[in-house]
């Protein structure tokens, strides 16, 4: 891994790059926890006011005034950069060299991929005492058991979001989406992002949401192609509005995106099971402000700060102390927030697909072009 990280800067020449690939393959699972290069020794008493942090996050994913408050409380100046997608931040972090980002917010399977490339600093639990606020289930996520290199920020699941007055019955299965009743034809939407495009068919067929089996994927593809006939559109962003306007009656939705504050709209996790997506915070190995980075994560995990995400983004947070502080009114209008961590954990955590990733992309293209 040392060879790997030092040669990353000389990304140009073909030979070195080819060697890199060999090195990566050779490291395989062995270096998977990113510890081969060893964690830095961090000073718990470091003067944080001398450190400066650059944090990359999705727009609106943490309070606007958090950097100021953190500076006032702990000292470090925080610059926030924004990314629109996991892919965008991945491109920055894996471009080679120092991205000058200290803390990044990425989804679990992307944290896993970053760690497999040796780009992440292990989490020094002693510098993050607020880890105690997390549910025990937060340490059992498939991409990073024990939170070795990532700290979960939000988590949730994907299910069916529907208009009770337009469906006329209570859906409970992915089949309600894939083979809708006649009155719902052209009134359903599915997500376009490949993992979530595949999820309903994978689960309905009884497969893993991380399956890489060619035969299973072929069945998934056929099912999705058949489902396209009764589909209104593929939609990752405006399905909530479509439900409200009545253009759609039943949509695939993330729990936090289902506008259940409208009394006619309900959310259900299909009986075949679903995914458990997690957005995490990671610290980059290239960071020169690792003490401040840990302090930042610790600050976020403070119950008062972390509950902001549940109150405002309407995503569950894996933080018992923070969930206890969530506004009762919000819990009432968004009952999905009350899902118990144990129930959430019955769903499948997406992991990095590795070499099968292009297969998923291809199937997604075949389905949307078909």
């Amino acid at each position, binding site marked *: 891994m040392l060879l790997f990280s030092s040669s990353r800067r000389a990304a140009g*020449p073909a030979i070195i790059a080819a060697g890199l690939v060999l090195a990566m393959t050779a490291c395989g699972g062995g270096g998977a926890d990113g510890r081969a290069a060893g964690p830095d020794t961090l000073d718990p008493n470091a003067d944080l006011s001398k450190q400066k942090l650059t944090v990359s996050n999705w727009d609106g994913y943490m309070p606007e005034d958090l950097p100021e408050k953190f500076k006032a409380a702990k000292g470090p100046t925080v610059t926030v950069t924004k990314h629109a*997608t996991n892919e965008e931040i991945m491109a920055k972090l894996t471009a080679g060299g120092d991205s000058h980002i200290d803390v990044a917010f990425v989804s679990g399977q992307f944290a896993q991929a970053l760690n497999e490339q040796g780009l992440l600093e292990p989490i020094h639990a002693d510098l993050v005492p607020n880890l105690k606020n997390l549910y025990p289930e937060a340490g059992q996520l498939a991409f990073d058991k024990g939170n070795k290199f990532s700290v979960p920020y939000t988590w949730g699941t994907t299910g069916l979001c529907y208009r009770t007055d337009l469906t006329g019955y209570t859906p409970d299965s992915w089949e309600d989406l894939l083979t809708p009743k006649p009155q719902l034809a*052209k009134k359903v939407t599915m997500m376009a992002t490949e993992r979530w495009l595949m999820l309903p068919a994978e689960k309905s067929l009884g497969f893993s949401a991380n399956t890489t089996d060619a035969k299973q994927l072929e069945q998934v593809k056929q099912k999705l192609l058949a489902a396209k006939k009764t*589909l209104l559109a593929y939609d990752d962003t405006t399905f909530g509005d479509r439900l409200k306007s*009545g253009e759609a009656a039943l949509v695939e939705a993330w729990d936090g995106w289902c506008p259940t504050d409208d009394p006619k709209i309900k959310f259900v996790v299909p009986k075949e099971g679903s995914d458990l997506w997690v957005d995490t915070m990671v610290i980059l190995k290239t960071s020169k402000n690792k003490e401040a980075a840990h302090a930042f994560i610790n600050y976020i995990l403070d119950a008062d700060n972390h509950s902001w995400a549940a109150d405002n983004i309407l995503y569950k947070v894996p933080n018992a102390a923070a969930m206890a502080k969530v506004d009762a009114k919000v819990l009432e209008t968004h009952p999905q927030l009350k899902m118990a961590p144990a129930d959430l954990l019955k769903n499948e955590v997406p992991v990095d697909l590795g*070499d099968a990733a292009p297969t998923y*992309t291809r199937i997604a293209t075949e389905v949307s072009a078909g």
Partner: protein
Amino acid sequence: MSATRTPPRAARRERLVGRLATLGPGLGYLTVFMLVPLALVLGYTLFHRGRFGGIVYEASADNYTRVADGLYLGVIWTSVKIAGITTLLALLLGYPTAYLIAQLPRAWRTVALVLVVLPFWTNFLIRTYAWIILLNSEGIINRALTGLGIIQRPLELLYTQGAVVGGLLYAYLPLMVLPLYSAIERLDPQLREASANLGARPARTFWSVTLPLTLPGALTGCVFVFVPSLGNFVIPELLGGGRTVMVGNLIRDQFLKARDWPFGSTLALIVIALLVLLLMAQAWAARRLTDGTDRA
């Protein structure tokens, strides 16, 4: 001649400096922002994606064999078809529009041209969303029609290939009207008068005089509409509901979602090659069309 008065070498140097000063900025711009990126695109096509994205520098022609796959050729064909239909419709709609504008009194022509370009003052995305609000099954048009009892069930106006063509046509029609207008407006009215004096009916004058002389303008308009239509990815996504994939979507997804820059570059290069061929054909046709006229 000035060359006899100043020494030839100094004159040549002067001319060179003059050329560099005038051509330099433009050439520099083209080199930095066109040639270098194009060279990068060409270079990337020879490599492949690493396990986590990024680029692995092992040369191979794999990306090209991958494009030859029916799936991607199918997408390119769909795109060419959609862009072609859009262009044809734009020509059929744009020609009469441009013709009529050219017949207006001078003051009204300016007003009409401003109206043609007026939509460009609003953001393209907002205009596209406006179509969604108008056309969706619970949208203004469907509500009005069902409210008036003209239709029982809402019409399926959105999320079809037709909706994509409609959106592209709406977006790029002005690019057809403007070059056509300039070609028609430039036409010497005496040519048409001569045709009429020689006994040709208006239809004959149109087919034998006006149309052939304005065809180069029509070709320019066609290229202006076809090229951006072929590469568009916003309209297939918004008005096509993601149910239609055009080559622009494919390229965008390879770069931004699959993080497969080499394959995305290969697709981009193929589209560029297609467009270069098209431009060459257009230039050749325009030359053929203007040959033999008394322009010279």
